[in-house]
């Protein structure tokens, strides 16, 4: 031992009242753990929404009136939904000033396939290669040569096939032409994209072939139209124009649709954030109360420290330091427990998101680190703010009275 620092003094004080310290650390760790976990989930949904927006590249979604919610379900969670409208809406949409691209998509009945021991559900989507801006820009790898509209399909990054391999849909053989980059979003990862014209032909073939369930799709059916508007155009006005010009369609703004998803998530999990905030405030108040008691209990010691040369600032720092050490330990513990819990139950959490129809992308390591750092700072703030008033009171003690009062 070559010196007694303020932090050493603070640590010794913490050890002196070990039960009180442990209770405080535990309370802080619960609060910070909940904050960390909830923020992590929120970030994963937020990231999912951002990637979804970037991938879709559309400003508006046009669906048959009454099917807006189903259209949203398909895009957000990748869950199959069947509904159609006539393809003539595409020409009407593209004719509206300000619309720069309109690409139809067809949602078809689920195709299931057997992979080893489990049946994985995939979404079958017909896309229009000529107008598409949602699928083809995200191709990660493909076979050489141009796409063959008669036999080629494009698969999501999580469909367990390789490009060039054969793939059977409704008994018809197709070639995997390309695979998309993995996103973590079901709509892109677990979907098989088939050229629209070929989808109509496939439906016809299933009707003619015995032993295969018919694909209920008529030529000219489309489920949705994804619309991209000019950068200078007013998206809201164009949406209103589409609704005015084309009867029996609903128009959703993609941004609103995804924001709505976030709102739904917040409704479901916002309680946790509120719980975390309430815990944070309660713990801050608890720290304030505990440290007010500590200052009162240690008046004589504080007076002695002043007598031997500690100025007001040093006494204030000692009180704050003690609180900050406690809340830092609680914060680190909460983050560690949160991280371990997430690591162990990651697959369960992600499948819960899928069940709840949320787009999600697991945050990257730097993002998790940033969330951890933010949660840690919240724990530090808890200590600093909680001990602020008791620390201030400790500086107001006149050494002589502090020593006499403590006698």
């Amino acid at each position, binding site marked *: 031992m070559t010196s007694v620092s303020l932090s050493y003094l603070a640590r*010794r004080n913490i050890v002196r009242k070990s039960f009180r310290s442990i209770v405080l650390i535990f309370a802080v760790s619960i609060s910070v753990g909940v904050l960390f976990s909830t923020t992590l989930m929120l970030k994963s949904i937020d990231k999912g929404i951002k990637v979804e927006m970037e991938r879709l590249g559309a400003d508006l979604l046009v669906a048959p009136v009454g099917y807006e919610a189903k259209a949203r379900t398909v895009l957000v969670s990748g869950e199959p939904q069947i509904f159609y409208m006539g393809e003539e809406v595409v020409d009407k949409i593209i004719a509206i000033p300000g619309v720069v691209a309109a690409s139809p998509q067809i949602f078809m009945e689920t195709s299931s396939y057997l992979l080893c021991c489990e049946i994985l559900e995939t979404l079958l989507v017909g896309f229009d290669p000529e107008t598409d801006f949602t699928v083809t820009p995200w191709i990660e790898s493909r076979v050489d040569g141009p796409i063959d509209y008669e036999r080629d399909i494009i698969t999501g990054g999580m469909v367990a096939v390789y490009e060039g391999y054969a793939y059977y849909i409704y008994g018809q053989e197709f070639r995997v032409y390309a695979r998309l980059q993995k996103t973590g979003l079901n709509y892109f990862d677990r979907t098989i994209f088939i050229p629209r014209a070929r989808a109509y032909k496939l439906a016809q073939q299933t009707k003619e072939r015995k032993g295969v369930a018919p694909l209920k799709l008529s030529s000219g059916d489309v489920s949705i139209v994804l619309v991209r508007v000019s950068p200078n155009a007013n998206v809201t006005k164009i949406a209103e124009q589409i609704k005015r010009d084309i009867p029996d369609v609903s128009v959703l703004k993609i941004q609103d649709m995804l924001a709505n998803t976030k709102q739904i998530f917040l409704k479901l999990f916002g309680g946790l954030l509120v719980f975390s905030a309430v815990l944070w405030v309660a713990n801050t108040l608890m720290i304030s109360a505990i440290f007010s008691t500590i200052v009162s209990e240690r008046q004589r010691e504080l007076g002695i420290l002043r007598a031997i040369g500690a100025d007001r600032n040093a006494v204030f720092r000692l009180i704050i330091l003690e609180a900050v050490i406690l809340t830092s330990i609680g914060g680190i513990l909460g983050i560690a427990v949160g991280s371990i819990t997430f690591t162990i139950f990651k697959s369960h959490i992600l499948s819960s998101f899928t069940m709840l129809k949320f787009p999600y992308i697991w945050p990257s390591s730097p993002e998790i680190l940033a969330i951890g750092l933010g949660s840690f700072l919240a724990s530090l703030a808890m200590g600093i703010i909680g001990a602020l008033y008791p620390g201030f009171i400790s500086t107001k003690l006149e*050494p002589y009275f502090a020593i006499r009062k403590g006698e």
Partner: protein
Amino acid sequence: MIVTENLTKIYRVGDRDIEAVIDVGLRISDNEFVSIVGHSGSGKTTLLSMIGGLTRPTKGKVFVDGIDIWSLGDKELSKLRNEKIGFIFQFSSLIPTLTALENVMLPATFSQNKKKEVAIRAEEMLDLVELSHRIDSYPSQLSGGEQRRVAIARALVNKPKIILADEPTGDLDHETEKDVIDLFLKINKEFNTTFLLVTHNIELAMKADRKLVMDQGKIIEDPND
């Protein structure tokens, strides 16, 4: 040198003013060993606290080596307490969570002194008070006399010019009390330290170079007057 001018302290208790110290003028030379005696409530401790910069006088001034200590800001006054004054109180004033050695080193936490030198000096001071074998003991493991000797070592660690001792032997047995006072006299001679000792014990007070008597907030007897 310590000089006080018209030093007065009035406490407000309820709606009453209590004059604890009234117009005390005092001069204590360097290396002088001064004792103050008086009944309980005569104002001895309050006077000592004002001289030591622990409680602000209602009126009057305190000069330590020519510095008007109550004109200093908190930082400067704390520095002065740290460097020039060592306190010994009438109770165990050790920090219970620190060992004897750590308690002695504590003043260095608030000074610019080199920590390593302080550690060596702390051990020397514990040796001086004959407690070098108890450096790792906590206050609860020390007897009352040993605790007081650790407090003396702590008061000396920053080589102060002045020691202010408030009833330092009040709760000690006669033998230990004699040892402590002998130690004070030794320190006074060896380190040329000025001592201001508050005590009830006339016999102890007589060992000082100069004995002051206080009553009702005033110095009623001073050989220099």
